[in-house]
């Protein structure tokens, strides 16, 4: 029995779909639904926390309040 080597058009389409990058179409009823989805997949860059920590470390110490000065007498 001769084995079939050529793919049918349907098989070729299926193969192409398998090899294509995995993307899916999503439907959003409203703009805010789409934005909510976008916000959910947006990561906050870790560098912000690092910068914030440095900035906080560099803050001057708060001036003592009048009652702190009074207690030190």
């Amino acid at each position, binding site marked *: 029995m001769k084995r079939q080597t050529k793919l049918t058009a349907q098989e070729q389409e299926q193969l192409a779909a398998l090899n294509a990058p995995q*993307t899916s179409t999503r439907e959003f009823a409203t703009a805010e639904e789409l934005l*909510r989805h976008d916000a959910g997949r947006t990561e906050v860059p870790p560098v912000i*926390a690092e910068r914030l*920590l440095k900035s906080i470390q560099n803050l001057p*110490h708060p001036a003592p309040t009048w009652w702190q000065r009074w207690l030190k007498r």
Partner: protein
Amino acid sequence: MELLVRDTGVEKRSQLGLEPAEFAELYQTHSRPVYYLALRYLGDPQKAEDVTHDVFLKVYRKLNEFRGESSWRTWLYRITLNHCHNVRQSWHSRNLITNADEAVWENAAARADSPLRALETKELGQRIQKALDGLAEEHRLLLLLVADEELSYAEIATLTEQSADAVRGKLHRARKAFAVLFQQSA
């Protein structure tokens, strides 16, 4: 943000009425919405990064001024919007840009009513930004605020200094304009 909790320099500042763990939790909970609002409102990741940093630094320094009259989210957004407006003002003073969406949707109302279909790709964020950039500034802001489910219409109205009815009316136009611009960006 765990570093903030452990850092001894931060602990010294608790005399301001601030507990480091509370601040870290505040950052964990709200940094994403603050960053996202700044990112999509300004359309510039670097500026959004700067704004988010500045907002939380200001919050850290002024935490004792929070009176609990509004939610944390509303208070943070108010500071974020002030920062964003300052950034935009300084930028606009150097670059004259007009982007009005008034005519965009009126001629394309049918398309604006259909659902938004989008492929889950890296480019989705770029498409969203492009559509938002085409909106009038007020419409862009209203859409971004209403997308946050933690905010009520009343809170959005307060943040944008108008009535809740005005917010609803403008949102209707903003949604339509966005839908058209988003479809055009495909």
